[in-house]
């Protein structure tokens, strides 16, 4: 049984720029019979994907190719317009650390708040607060508001909370390296430990070398479709070739124009 299974997933999203958030204007448009169905854009196009338990999948591709959208569909934040999404086990999203913090609440209350948002129970988080503070090296800030933490400290706290769990599926949008050098080593070790476990990892990254080395397999997203899938080295090579070719093409064309 796969950990993640996407079957023919397509997603149309409304384009926000063209939406008028103005009731008066919409009413006038209705009266003048000018109302149109909102324009939609296809951001995922027939994506089928199977990720086995314990697999580490790297997702690569240009900006706007649908990488993060795939993660959101897997997390259940977005629902596919067509197709099916099946996941097995607890999903831990590690998307932009600290998104759930309330700057005015004290650190210990934020730990409970963030942990519950990420899917754990209040009791569990209260029991773990000390441990998390220790890992983040923020014990003396227990009752200060998060507002007074430096951005590095806040990132450390976010990392400590989010990784202090035993997820079945770990979702990473860009690899995490937070804090100063010593904390960076510590966080890397924790990520590596999660990696070694039988956790399924899905990671979006622009660091091709990292994807090649650390992931078992990869997909290359292009215009909302999977352009290529397979072992990570194979997919990264293909992607690099294509990027280099198109860069070379552009260079050629530029030269031709100049000549």
């Amino acid at each position: 049984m796969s950990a993640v299974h996407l079957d023919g997933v397509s997603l149309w999203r409304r384009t926000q720029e063209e939406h008028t958030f103005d009731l008066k204007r919409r009413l006038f448009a209705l009266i003048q019979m000018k109302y149109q169905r909102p324009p939609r854009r296809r951001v995922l196009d027939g994506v089928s994907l199977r990720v086995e338990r314990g697999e580490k999948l790297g997702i690569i591709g240009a900006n706007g190719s649908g990488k993060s959208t795939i993660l959101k569909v897997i997390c259940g934040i977005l629902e596919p317009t067509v197709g099916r999404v099946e996941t097995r086990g607890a999903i831990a999203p590690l998307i932009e650390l600290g998104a759930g913090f309330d700057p005015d609440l004290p650190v210990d209350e934020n730990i409970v708040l963030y942990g519950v948002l990420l899917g754990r129970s209040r009791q569990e988080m209260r029991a773990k607060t000390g441990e998390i503070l220790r890992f983040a090296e923020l014990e003396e800030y227990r009752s200060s508001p998060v507002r007074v933490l430096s951005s590095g400290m806040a990132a450390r706290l976010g990392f400590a909370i989010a990784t202090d769990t035993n997820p079945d599926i770990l979702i990473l949008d860009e690899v995490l390296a937070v804090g100063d050098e010593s904390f960076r080593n510590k966080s890397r070790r924790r990520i590596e430990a999660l990696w070694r476990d039988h956790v399924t990892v899905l990671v979006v990254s622009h660091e091709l070398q990292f994807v090649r080395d650390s992931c078992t397999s990869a997909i290359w997203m292009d215009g909302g479709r999977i352009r290529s899938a397979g072992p990570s080295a194979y997919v990264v090579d293909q992607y690099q070739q294509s990027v280099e070719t198109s860069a070379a093409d552009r260079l050629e064309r530029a030269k031709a124009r100049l000549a």
Partner: protein
Amino acid sequence: MPRMRRFWDLLTVLTDRTLKARYRGSFLGVYWSLLNPVTMTVVYTAIFGFQFRKYYDGSMLHYALVVFVGLSVFIFFAQSTSQALPSVVVNSGLANKIRLPAVLFPLSTISAYSVQLAIGTLPVFAVISVFETHQPWRLLLLPFPLIGLVLLAAGVSFLVSTAYVFFRDIPHIWELVTFLAWVASPVFYPAEIVSPKILHILYFNPLFPTIESLRQIIVGTQLPDVSLVGASLFNGIVACAIGYAVFGGLRRQFMDLI
């Protein structure tokens, strides 16, 4: 069951966050919420009390208490709904990163105000009722119109927070609507002074049964009318059902617009 449990945990932490944000560092805490209706009651009584007391057994105090009850109900409704109105949009950062039931955002606002209602306003209502009527059994009825009120506010907040996702000019309209509802609620004036034709329209005000039944329980010389209590609960349940249906029906479109 784990889903219910998770929903409850989420609602608790989000409610807690809202309450703490509101009362940080204030030693009166939740009791600040009484300041607003008390001050306004003093002002209304000073201005209208002399003329209107004849409709309230000739007693300025009765007029003041009636105004206080009506104001507390109305302020709860107006504040909680206008605060819940932008809640879905305001929390878009969170909703875009973590899978959460969107209904939590308006609901946690309403529940924060309900906590305030339960520990700030309800005891005051209870004390007034006992002193005024000397009939402690009336306290048994007291929670029901308040539950109706909370349900009504929740239902309306589902509607307005949905509307705000699509139309960002809703707050201006909502301000006008609540002001109209304020004038159309016989809170600071006796219903008797309104012409019977207009009075029929006022009965459509969904806050009317709540305010009227609370007034009867707390201040009235007449016995509380149980059908009014029922009407208050009924309004709340209907509002909640409609609000939740609309919210749920359009929820799928939220993520593209926030």
